[in-house]
């Protein structure tokens, strides 16, 4: 009595990326369905505040946008993806406008744009300080309009992928999902393709701007199905989050002219030479490190944070453009942004890395796509520019949706899987074995075992028995303890500043977490809305994802973009102009590299010193 739902295109996740993919597939004539663990409007895209980069105006063009993005990425972006983003963003943004998105407006009635960190032109299109909210709702509205099927509060736990020694030979036929409301486990067969759009992985860290639901599920599921995770060590720490909760204070505050002060009232970005040109508007990694350095050198407030001041902008401007910030500061920190400076410190914000895809969002597994924050196309390389994630969602969401629906987009320039110039890592000094523990059936999975016809059914069965076992256990460790342990070690050791010994400690702790996970148990006996079970499964994903981040961080012995290593204080272009990849390899992870693609339409992007 296995229920199998069948659609042409199954989109997992209904944030900005997933919604756009579903709409695109639908417009291509496919029967698309969204399967999402949260109702679409609850997705974390709604939290994005600042804006969407798109070269819309005279004086700006996509080449400039691509150039800024490549520079921001510290030359680890792949040119075809970066250029694709810059080229398609304007059209996609205007599409949103035509769907009614309430953008902020200029006097002449056109959409407003503002400056953002790392951009050579004020090209960040915005809707107040709640751009993501409007984008998410506008696209959900279009999904309703088109009558696209939405399975909400269905938690996808596993991909139905055929087995083959070589992941590039595997095919994805669908997914398995758990209906949170009733506890039913069902299969979803996709005749065209499965698009993963599960968003961020911020829950790997304790102090994060990401939602509680951002547990890197898509990354972990694709990883265990054999798809490589790319550049996982590149985690962006946003310089302005509220110290108590991690709630984000948008970069727009600095874009509009907000100023950072240390405890001594010094404008440290200039005073201490962190970024003598751009000051507060330098790239996020630069500002985050500057703040932490201030705190570490004793110039922080309460040894914890610095101040972000916007009072001088004046009440009118603040209320007009940053009103939402006033509410956030008031509700979550009890600070009135019109009257006093706001306390801020760096917090985990964005994962540049993710599931490896080409510039159409396709992975090396046939029929499996990934878009949005869970994917790595790679647009952001070593560091994402503010306002570049939202356009990524719509640009690549649309492409993957179309591709999965069967549209011919031409050949991809970016190769996927172990093809091209692959370089294996074999000399890495690991403190413990990463990957699967022995025993513990709740922990084992990997690729499925059957041929194409019955792969979805088989995956459903495998998932049923996993859930059965998790539910059966009487006693043991609670997922919340394991998750907290992982978050703690990641926060201590694989944060803004990284040292070799620390990363190794993190790997040891993650290993311990894996072992404890073998004894994890679900206390809630109910099948109805069992969030205990859902979070237990998510925690497994958090562990897997944390491990890939730590592995990448240990391997990359240089300082590039958001990745800073104490022992390696410079960017090493000779050795490290390449992406890191981690593959699950059925439980014994492999590390390998491929060079980044710097050859674009307008020639080669020359790595330059990144100074702001």
């Amino acid at each position, binding site marked *: 009595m296995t229920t199998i739902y069948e659609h042409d295109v199954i989109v997992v996740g209904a944030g900005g990326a997933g919604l756009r993919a579903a709409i695109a597939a639908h417009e291509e004539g496919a029967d698309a369905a969204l399967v999402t663990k*949260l*109702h679409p*409007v*609850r997705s*974390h895209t*709604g*939290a994005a505040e600042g804006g969407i980069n798109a070269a*819309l105006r005279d004086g700006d063009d996509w080449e400039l946008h691509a150039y800024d993005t490549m520079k921001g990425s510290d030359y680890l972006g792949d040119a075809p993806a970066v250029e694709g983003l810059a080229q398609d963003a*304007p*059209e996609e943004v*205007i599409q949103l*406008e*035509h*769907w*009614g998105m*309430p*953008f*902020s*407006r*200029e*006097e002449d*009635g*056109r*959409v407003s744009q503002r400056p953002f960190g790392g951009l050579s032109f004020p090209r960040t299109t915005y809707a*107040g300080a*709640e751009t993501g*909210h409007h984008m998410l709702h506008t696209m959900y*509205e*279009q999904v*309703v*309009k088109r009558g696209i099927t939405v399975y909400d509060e269905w938690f996808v736990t596993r991909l139905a992928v055929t087995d083959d020694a070589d992941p590039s030979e595997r095919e994805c036929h669908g997914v398995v999902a758990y209906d949170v*409301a009733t506890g039913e486990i069902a299969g979803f067969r996709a005749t065209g393709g499965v698009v993963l759009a599960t968003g961020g992985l911020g829950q790997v860290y304790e102090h994060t701007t990401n*939602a*509680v639901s951002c547990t890197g599920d898509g990354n972990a599921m694709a990883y265990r199905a054999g798809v490589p995770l790319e550049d996982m060590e590149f985690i962006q720490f946003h310089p302005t989050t509220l110290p*108590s*909760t*991690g*709630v*984000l204070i948008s970069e727009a505050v600095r874009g509009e002219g907000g100023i950072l002060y240390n405890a001594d009232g010094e404008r440290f970005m200039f005073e201490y030479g962190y970024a003598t040109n751009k000051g507060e508007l330098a790239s996020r990694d630069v500002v985050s490190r500057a703040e932490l350095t201030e705190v570490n050198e004793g110039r922080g407030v309460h040894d914890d944070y610095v101040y972000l001041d916007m009072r001088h902008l004046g009440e009118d401007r603040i209320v007009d453009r940053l009103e939402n910030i006033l*509410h956030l500061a008031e*509700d*979550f920190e*009890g600070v009135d942004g019109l009257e006093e400076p706001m306390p801020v410190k760096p917090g985990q914000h964005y994962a540049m890395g993710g599931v490896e895809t080409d510039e159409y969002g396709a992975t090396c597994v046939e029929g499996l796509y990934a878009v949005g924050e869970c994917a790595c196309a790679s647009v952001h390389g070593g560091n994402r520019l503010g306002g570049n994630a939202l356009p990524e969602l719509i640009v690549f969401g649309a492409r993957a949706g179309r591709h999965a629906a069967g549209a011919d987009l031409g050949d991809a320039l970016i190769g996927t899987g172990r093809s091209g110039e692959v370089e294996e890592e074999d000399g890495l000094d690991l403190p413990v074995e990463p990957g699967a523990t022995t025993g513990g059936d709740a922990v084992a999975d990997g690729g499925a075992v059957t041929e194409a016809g019955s792969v979805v059914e088989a995956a459903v069965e495998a998932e049923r028995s996993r859930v059965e076992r998790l*539910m*059966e256990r*009487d*006693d043991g460790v*609670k997922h*919340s303890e394991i998750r907290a342990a992982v978050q703690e070690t990641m926060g201590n050791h694989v944060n803004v500043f990284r040292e070799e010994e620390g990363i190794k400690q993190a790997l040891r702790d993650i290993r311990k977490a894996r072992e404890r996970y073998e004894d994890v148990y*679900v*206390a*809630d*006996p*109910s*099948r*109805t*809305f*069992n*969030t*205990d079970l859902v979070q237990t499964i998510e925690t497994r994903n958090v562990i897997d994802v944390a491990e890939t981040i730590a592995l990448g961080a240990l391997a990359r012995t240089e300082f590039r973009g958001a990745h800073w290593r104490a022992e390696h204080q410079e960017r090493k272009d000779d050795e490290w102009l390449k992406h890191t990849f981690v593959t699950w390899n059925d439980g014994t992870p492999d590390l390998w590299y491929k060079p980044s693609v710097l050859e674009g339409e307008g020639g080669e992007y020359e790595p330059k010193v990144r100074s702001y």
Partner: protein
Amino acid sequence: MSTQEQEPATQEQEPPETESPGDRRRAEKQRRLAADRQAEAEAATTTDEETVLLKVFRYDPEVEDKQEPRFDDFHVPYEDGMTVLDALIYARDTFDSSLTFRHSCRQAICGSDALFVNGSQRLACKTQLSDLDAPVRVEPLPHQDVVKDLVVDMEHFYDQMHAVEPYFQSDDLPEGDLEEQRQSRENREKVKMSTRCIWCGACTSSCNIAAGDNQYLGPAAINKAYRFTMDEREADKKEHRLRILEQEHGVWRCQTQFSCTEVCPKDIPLTEHIQELKREAVKKNLKFW
């Protein structure tokens, strides 16, 4: 009523009578663990630490002793700046992992955690414990069926939202590549508040009329319609929009109780929007006389 008259439950939980022996064992274990933890928590209370008492509504159709709704007590150590959501998470992670509630963003944007806290609809993540009288009573949103503990069935709310054709449908798009529709600042300002809705359902839950008349669109859906009706970019569809709103269970049902406006966590002036639409509808109809 029934929810209120229930005696706050004792911490003891009867072993639920469930199907398989495995289930029973599990439940037995759980009872013991929960009791232990509660005892620990109680012990913690007697020390000098400052704690807040939460009385939380519990119900689970599948677990024997939760089938009859009850309130459980949780003593949560208080920290500065703690919200109701923080306290619930603490209670769940520390005392009883079966405590169930929706939440995600922790920053008042996903709209998952509208709850009935001390007699009024609030977003748990946005409600500071320091603003509440102790003990803090936490219940699921009124007027919606309870699925489990604090989780309510939102289907009907979504249906109402979908009923107002909540999507842009202007046929009047500008010609030419990359040509946007123009919208004046004033017009954007006019619809601005209405676009902030996060679909939390607090307003509809607070409205007596929505409670009595299940077909009443309710303040959230009407506000959603307002967002389109008043958007000058969609002027060609205004009449169509008003036709939906002036149906029997549309705007006329609103009796200006204002509770929707009072509870909306996004400060949307719902009553004002509804009233404006009533006037628009009357104006439209007057034209035909």
